[in-house]
């Protein structure tokens, strides 16, 4: 059974000049124990999608979906309160800029303690504070912080970004979630720290069978850690498949261009030659093209592309293009 099954999720932003379709019919499925990468340029709606799954978008945003199932439960049929309860119980999220996501006036220990749910504790209320503290220290050890006492009494600004991200992961782990959404967890971090955070996430995935939705703008960086990848462009679904499928035989012109633009994937490219890039830049939200939003930049675009393509599935490799590159392989 799928852990998370989202079909045709759209997110609208209400502004004074009408509504803007920020995310246009994106589908996403997650299996248990899977690490899925969600890749796209900045502004392609990845973070908004993640926040819509968590239900923490404010009232300016409106979310529609044809299907939104969590472990077989239809969340759309449930009232808002219950949906929030189920999601916050089983899904946790970590953000980019971890330092900004921790309350600056509360110690790390207190913030961790309030994340430990009551159902994990036993006994009378006077025994609970001690149990909470013990649980917090265990969590800190789990994310690789050995000096737990010093960290417990610190304020967020006294720690480094990488430490704050570890604390955020510890907070996320407190409820033993089935799915962890990691929204660019290593943005603005040094590469050694990036490696540490990714290794930590990978070990959590292997040891606890925790599914991870890894959001990133960097395709080649996430490929080491993911089983499957979903690619988005400008709020539209582009392509989804296993990491190998995406890397070896991308069906969508955008994915192909993304791979061609990376120096690591093109080892045979002669030195000092130009990398392949698409002309133009990602459209702004106020001036989105109709149909396939890649249209104006796409090397394979034809007249038909002014109508949005339907997703086609080739043995689990989904692609959203009228003129997919499938036949060229």
């Amino acid at each position, binding site marked *: 059974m799928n852990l998370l099954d989202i079909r045709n999720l759209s997110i609208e932003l209400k502004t004074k000049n009408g509504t803007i379709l920020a995310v246009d019919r994106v589908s996403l499925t997650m299996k248990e124990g899977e690490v899925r990468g969600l890749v796209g340029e900045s502004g392609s709606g990845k973070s908004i999608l993640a*926040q819509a799954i968590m239900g923490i978008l404010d009232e300016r945003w409106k979310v529609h979906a044809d299907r939104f199932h969590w472990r077989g439960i239809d969340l759309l049929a449930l009232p808002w309160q219950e949906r929030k309860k189920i999601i*916050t119980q089983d899904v946790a999220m970590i953000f980019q800029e971890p330092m900004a996501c921790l309350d600056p*006036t509360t110690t790390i220990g207190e913030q961790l303690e309030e994340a430990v749910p009551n159902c994990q504790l036993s006994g009378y209320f006077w025994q609970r504070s001690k149990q909470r503290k013990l649980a917090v220290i265990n969590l800190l050890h789990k994310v690789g912080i050995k000096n737990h006492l010093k960290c417990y009494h610190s304020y967020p600004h006294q720690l480094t970004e990488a*430490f704050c991200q570890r604390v955020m992961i510890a907070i996320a782990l407190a409820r033993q979630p089935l799915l962890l959404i990691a929204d660019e967890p290593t943005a603005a971090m040094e590469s050694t720290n990036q490696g540490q955070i990714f290794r930590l996430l990978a070990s959590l995935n292997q040891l606890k069978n925790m599914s991870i939705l890894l959001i990133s703008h960097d395709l080649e960086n996430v490929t080491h850690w993911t089983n499957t990848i979903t690619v988005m462009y400008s709020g539209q679904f582009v392509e989804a498949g296993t990491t190998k499928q995406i890397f070896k035989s991308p069906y969508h012109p955008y994915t192909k261009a993304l791979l061609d633009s990376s120096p690591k994937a093109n080892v045979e490219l002669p030195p000092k030659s130009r990398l392949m890039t698409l002309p133009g830049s990602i459209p702004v939200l106020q001036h989105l093209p109709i149909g396939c939003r890649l249209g104006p930049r796409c090397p394979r675009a034809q007249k038909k592309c002014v109508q949005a393509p339907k997703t086609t599935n080739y043995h689990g490799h989904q692609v959203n293009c009228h003129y997919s590159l499938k036949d060229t392989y």
Partner: protein
Amino acid sequence: MLQFTFRRLSLFFFTMLLLSLLSFSLSYFFPGDAIINLSGQVNASQEELALLSQQYAMHESFFSQYWHYLLRIFQGDMGISMASQLPISDEIANLLPATIELSIISLILAMSLGIPLGFIAAIFHKRAIDNIILSFAIVGYSIPVFWLGLFLILIFSIQLAWLPSAGNISLLFEIPHVTGFLFIDILLSNSEYKWQAFYNALAHIILPASVIAIAPATVFIRLARSAMMEVLATSYIKAAKTKGLTNAQIIYRHAIRNALIKMIRHIGLQFSHLITFAMITEVIFNWPGIGRWLIESIYQRDYTAIQSGLLVLSSFIFIVHIITDFIYATLNPLARENKHGS
């Protein structure tokens, strides 16, 4: 923290220097003889004036005059009042506590009314409650203090006869002067009518305190509302939502403290406005405070009282500013600097 303290103290020193310089220069800017303006001896004979100018070093340079002026202020000698011929330092010592008492009670009233209302408005942003509170804030801010004071006297003292309209305690009670703060003095006294006196003083302070509090409270409503809305839009509130905390828990544990820290400095800045309102209100309610005394001395052209009163009142306001700065530094962990924990 040590550096912070040192910086505040040096700021205090230089501001006091400038204030005293201004106060000293006023004796030359005011009409009349500088020595009479400084000392307040309006009825002195020619010989007495010569002796005074000897004492005040009036024939030496301005710097030396200023130095002697400072020395006298540190000895507690501010001259005598031109109108009453009483030492100004005694008058101020009698009157300042009443003003401090009134302004602190008004500040507490304004804070306990304004801050919760502002938070409620921010939490129910763009709903009916928000609009009601905001319109109350705008109406309250635009009502003139003297009009409100007279209006409340008309309703509560004259029409309904619930509350007294003048003074800070009924003349029936005789309270020995110990600290100057009326409520403390009442509690210290061992009169058998202690509690009657206390309730009487309480009834006297209600009207003036609420008149003073209304304008700062509306400012606090708007400050608290914007601070809370800013905090509620931050990413740590968003992250706290993903932890599965309820809205009440998020507001109580994370939002209120951060919003309050943002506000403390503004509260200190509002204090000078509050003193201005207090001065006007003291005149209306015949409150025996320094504000009424200062305004009366302006009417009577009592230049000695004006310059000393200004010096005392402005240093009081400045001391309050410094105290709020210290409270801010102790409450906000970001102001404490050393990094550890890695």
